[in-house]
């Protein structure tokens, strides 16, 4: 029996957009639900992207236009999924908008694309996040970069900016044992951007490793070190002390094996990528498979399937870069389309 099938995509970030577009273009009714007033998720907050220094605004504009072109896709911003009940071959879902409107819909497949958040670095008291001024996380710094680029002539640039990698990642003691994958790349990007804006500002990246396992990634990172002259220091900083209005950093240069000190005006923490609140809620509502950290997990042999008629894409499954999020969105769409094409 050929009935009209409906897909629900939860999350209007890059992965969700890709999934919705592909499902809609394949000729199926798609409802895209996004909790914020605007589409784009975390990518909308970015000033630039790796490895090609592209403006994410262009990418998002392109995707959102494709979305709008497809009449089968209805977009509901300022809306969240409040309740879901599993039926035999569908889900009965209750939506709630910020205006208070409730909506009950019946869907035949769900794609969870609820993205990520950054770990709260206040746990690292030794870095002074939340205690000292000018210690911020990477998303906050991205906003700062946007601010600086719009107002370059009127800014007196910082003399020195330090980037700490692995804050909360690769930490069995106070954080998470896993590696958040994208921070090495985006930190190189951020440090490089500072040098582009203010060539005289000293940039230090404190690292344990730099992980550039991707297409054009190694070349990108080397260019930041060799052409933009960002200084990489191998050592996880131990303490930040306020000194004369600036920030004194105590660390070790492990390659030389000596303790070092650097004074910076601003410190950027590459905080760990953690599952968003939306991911935690949706995984419960739809009974999705999750791992010990709350990231969505996949069924054996099915990399984007997490439950009965439930798929996922993007950072809700684990930290992933822009390209990967789009790949996964397309893969989840393929699963949905394949499911819809099956004869019942």
């Amino acid at each position: 029996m050929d009935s009209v099938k409906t897909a629900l995509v939860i999350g209007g970030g890059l992965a969700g957009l890709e999934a919705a577009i592909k499902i809609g273009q394949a000729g199926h009714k798609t409802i895209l639900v996004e909790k914020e007033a605007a589409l784009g998720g975390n990518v909308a907050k970015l000033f630039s992207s790796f490895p090609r220094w592209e403006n994410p605004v262009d990418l998002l504009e392109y995707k959102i236009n494709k979305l709008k072109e497809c009449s089968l896709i209805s977009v509901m911003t300022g809306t969240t999924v409040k309740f879901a009940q599993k039926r035999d071959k569908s889900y009965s879902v209750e939506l709630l908008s910020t205006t208070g409107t409730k909506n009950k819909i019946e869907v035949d497949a769900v794609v969870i694309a609820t993205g990520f958040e950054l770990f709260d670095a206040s746990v690292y008291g030794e870095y002074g996040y939340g205690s000292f001024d000018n210690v911020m996380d990477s998303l906050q710094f991205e906003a700062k970069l946007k601010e600086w680029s719009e107002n370059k002539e009127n800014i007196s640039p910082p003399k020195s900016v330090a980037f700490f990698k692995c804050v909360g990642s690769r930490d069995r003691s106070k954080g998470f044992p896993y590696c958040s994958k994208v921070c090495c790349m985006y930190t190189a990007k951020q440090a490089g951007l500072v040098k582009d804006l203010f060539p005289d500002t000293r940039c230090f990246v404190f690292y344990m490793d730099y992980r550039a396992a991707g297409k054009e990634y190694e070349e990108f990172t080397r260019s930041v070190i060799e052409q933009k002259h960002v200084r990489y220091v191998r050592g996880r900083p131990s303490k930040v002390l306020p000194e004369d209005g600036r920030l004194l950093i105590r660390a070790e240069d492990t390659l030389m094996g000596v303790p070092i000190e650097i004074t910076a005006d601003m410190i950027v923490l590459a905080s760990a990528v953690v599952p968003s609140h939306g991911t935690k809620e949706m995984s419960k509502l739809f009974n999705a498979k999750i791992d010990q950290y709350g990231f969505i997990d996949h069924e054996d042999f099915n990399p984007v399937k997490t439950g009965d008629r439930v798929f996922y894409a993007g950072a809700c499954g684990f930290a992933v870069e822009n390209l990967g999020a789009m790949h996964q969105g397309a893969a989840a769409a393929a699963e949905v389309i394949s499911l819809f094409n099956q004869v019942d």
Partner: protein
Amino acid sequence: MNVAYFPGCSLHGMASEYDLSARLVCKHLGINLQEIEDWNCCGATAAHSLDHLLNVALGARNLNIVKEMHLDRVTAPCAGCFNRLKTASYEMRHNPRVAAEVEKLIIAPAPVEPEVTNLLQLLIEIKGIEAIARQVVKPLKGLKLAAYYGCLLTRPTKVVEFDASEQPISLDLLLNALGAETVIWGHKAECCGGGYAASETNIVLDLGGQVLDSAHAAGAEAIVVACPMCQINLDSRRGKIEADRGKKYDMPIIYFTQLMGLAYGYSPRQLGLSKLLLNPITLLKSKELV
């Protein structure tokens, strides 16, 4: 409330004013401190440096007496003693091999039951900030203080389980409840040089000097401590540190219980304020607090 009390060698010796003010303040708050009868030295730096098992055994003997007193909690005002007793308790609870060895030395089952708390922890966690604030009759208005925790009060986190180790706030909250202002400064939980006071004094001059410098730069008028080692190190070596660095650090180093006592209406004499090498009386008079 009945709590076993472990004064430690310092409180019976050079830090008697800490003992005096602690007892006064606890009595005022309705906490009945029962000194552990026949307590032995916790071992301080010496024991754990040369003989780990001895350190645990010395602590175990004390904790065993607490058990015999039928008390479930022991408090130690000295951060060093607290850390040693807490570590002994932790080792016995988590390392069955150590517990077995200790049992042979104290000829009793490993005393894992008593809870070890430092005095600051007891007051804040058990009594609560409101109860502490309620007794204030003379708010310490106008005092700008640097709350100094030292290194052992809050570390290691998994053993001590008290406050945040790098940006602790309990002492700051207590001092605020007494009406004083506390400064934000970087060295609030860094080491003063501890047990090297006599054997490698240069270490204390270096580390203690950094603490004094940092508090001074933050605009503190006095440093408040919860450890006799920190108090003696900063107070007694100040002169030499000032000479070495060419700066003046006119900050008295006061035990937090003495300030509590002041806020509760006790006199400087009752609190042994004059026993501190740099007498805070001048500072307090300038703020019209005495």
